[in-house]
């Protein structure tokens, strides 16, 4: 019960009250902010927190996947197909996560023995293979036309659906951040960290490297599948584009900017992504006055900016923003 005592000592810290304050604000946002757009963007932010946290769990054991969209998509497709057949949505979500974990286990069997960039290549390749499989088996998956996902709460209006889903995704994000916290504070997390820091030394200490890396792969795939299942219910429609490389790259960008292999990394990264995108949207009318060509160029400039930020973060502060934030906000232990 070391985790519980750890939690209890944290309660007295100022950062704990800060966290509670943020949570209360988040809980009450839908009551004050009735703009559907803001709710939509916040739901996407929670989605990226959950998705990046699941990805970060794998990165915590030193394995960087370049194709996590594969697990996201498998979770989404599995839950959709199950829900269409049986109309049990909540069981379907669990099924999505389980199928994703199974596939993650099988791919993990290949990946755990590979070097970093072999692993990046294999996971990326797997997400590309999933695109081909999805289009090929179009009598199951709907091919390029995709599938319409049954709603999680079927009886309510679209407007209310967003507000309900806000709390669902918020709960998912909080749940996954806590899962990450509990895992890294446990013995398993210690083994993951040891493997990440030095594989050879970890092996010498008696850690079964292959077993723990496989475990990390399976857990990460499980939670990515879970996120994918909720995501599918939210957007209401899936096709092969869910396996798109950009979907695989976002959690990497978010987590690395926030802080690789830290609890707060995905959260900081997602919030920062949210603010950057909103800021760019705010100055868009001003940008359009520069010239008529700006309408097509502007979305590219946004992604260009994220690329530049990622490169700058890797070169200038390889640990991401989180250590810097800890120092200046006095939230360090």
């Amino acid at each position, binding site marked *: 019960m070391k985790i519980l005592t750890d939690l209890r000592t944290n309660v007295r810290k100022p950062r704990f009250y800060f966290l509670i304050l943020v949570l209360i604000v988040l809980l009450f946002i839908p009551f004050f902010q009735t703009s559907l757009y803001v709710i939509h963007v916040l739901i996407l932010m929670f989605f990226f927190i959950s998705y990046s946290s699941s990805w970060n769990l794998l990165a915590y054991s030193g394995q960087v996947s370049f194709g996590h969209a594969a697990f996201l998509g498998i979770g989404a497709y599995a839950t959709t197909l199950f829900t269409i057949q049986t109309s049990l949505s909540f069981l379907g979500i669990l099924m999505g996560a389980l199928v994703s974990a199974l596939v993650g286990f099988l791919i993990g069997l290949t990946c755990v023995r590979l070097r970093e960039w072999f692993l990046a290549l294999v996971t990326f390749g797997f997400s*590309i293979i999933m695109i081909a499989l999805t289009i*090929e088996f179009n009598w199951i998956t709907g091919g390029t036309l995709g599938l319409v996902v049954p709603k999680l709460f079927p009886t309510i209006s679209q407007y209310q659906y967003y507000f309900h889903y806000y709390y669902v995704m918020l709960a998912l994000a909080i749940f996954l951040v806590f899962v990450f916290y509990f895992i890294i504070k446990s013995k398993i997390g210690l083994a993951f960290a040891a493997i990440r820091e030095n594989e050879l030394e970890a092996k010498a200490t008696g850690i079964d490297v292959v077993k723990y890396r496989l475990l990390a792969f399976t857990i990460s795939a499980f939670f990515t599948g879970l996120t994918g299942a909720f995501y599918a219910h939210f957007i209401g429609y899936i096709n092969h584009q869910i396996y798109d490389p950009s979907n695989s790259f976002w959690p*990497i960008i978010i987590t690395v900017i926030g802080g690789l292999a830290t609890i707060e990394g995905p959260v900081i990264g997602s919030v920062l992504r949210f603010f950057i995108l909103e800021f760019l949207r705010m100055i868009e009318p001003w940008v359009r006055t520069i010239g008529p060509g700006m309408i097509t160029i502007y979305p590219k400039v946004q*992604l260009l900016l994220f690329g530049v930020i990622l490169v700058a973060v890797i070169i200038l502060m390889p640990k991401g923003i989180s250590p810097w934030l800890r120092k200046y906000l006095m939230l360090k232990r």
Partner: protein
Amino acid sequence: MKRLPLAISLPTLIQILIWGLIVGCIYVLLASGLNLIFGVMKVVNFAHGEFMIMGGYVSYWVSILEGLNPYLSIFVSMIIVGAVGILTERICFHQVLGTSKLNELILSLGLIYVLQNAMSVLWTDYPVLIDSPFKNIIVEFGIVRMRLDWLIVIGITVLVMAGFYILIRKTKIGRAMRATSQNRVAAMLMGINVERINMFSFGLGTALAATAGTLLAITTSITPYAGEIPALKAFTIIILGGLGSPLGAVVGGLAYGLVESCAVTILGGTWRDAVGFAILILVLIVRPTGLFGEKEK
């Protein structure tokens, strides 16, 4: 299920093989450049395909603005993209060299975003095809019919690879590059300026990619986003052909082009990108260090 074309006539088969050869030539150039960079610097550069596309666009620009023959504009493109490559090496990869492989991977991911979107801003998203002056000429040898452009593409690849071989094998800087790739510290002790060798190899690798990009833009067409997957395929090729083995990159590139061309005909266009990765995964299941990979600690 769609019907598989089981009976392929001989002319069709020859067309498939020729097309495989053309695609293979582009992969050979791309994989050789990557192999050189990986061999000398031990850097994994997933953004290599973006340099290829940049080469295509620069050639397009030069051939449109200056009215230069696109095949001659390859030289201009090689120089410009090589310079951009050296600049990238100085600004980005040099800073993270020797820290950790993950940093290099994520850095190259950031570069993919930067270069793709910069090219998209400069040249828009519409597919670009370089207009070759020989596009209507078709040559025939018996039952083999092909565009003159395709012959020139094969010829240029052979020439460039021959030049590359001579540079690596016969010149002083080539020997220095080989020495650096074998043992970095020993090369340093022998008085080789390793940093300059790094710059030169990165420039040369990206210049080879620029050639590949020009040939790609002449034979098919390019968009700013077309480089991402070919670069990862080129990595597949050098893993399958043996890391750091120049012959492996050539043979692997040609074989990969042929396999891809056959797979597209038999399985359909959706499998174009997937088939190579499927082979890669199957090979890595059996041999986690690659087909000819040496046992590493």
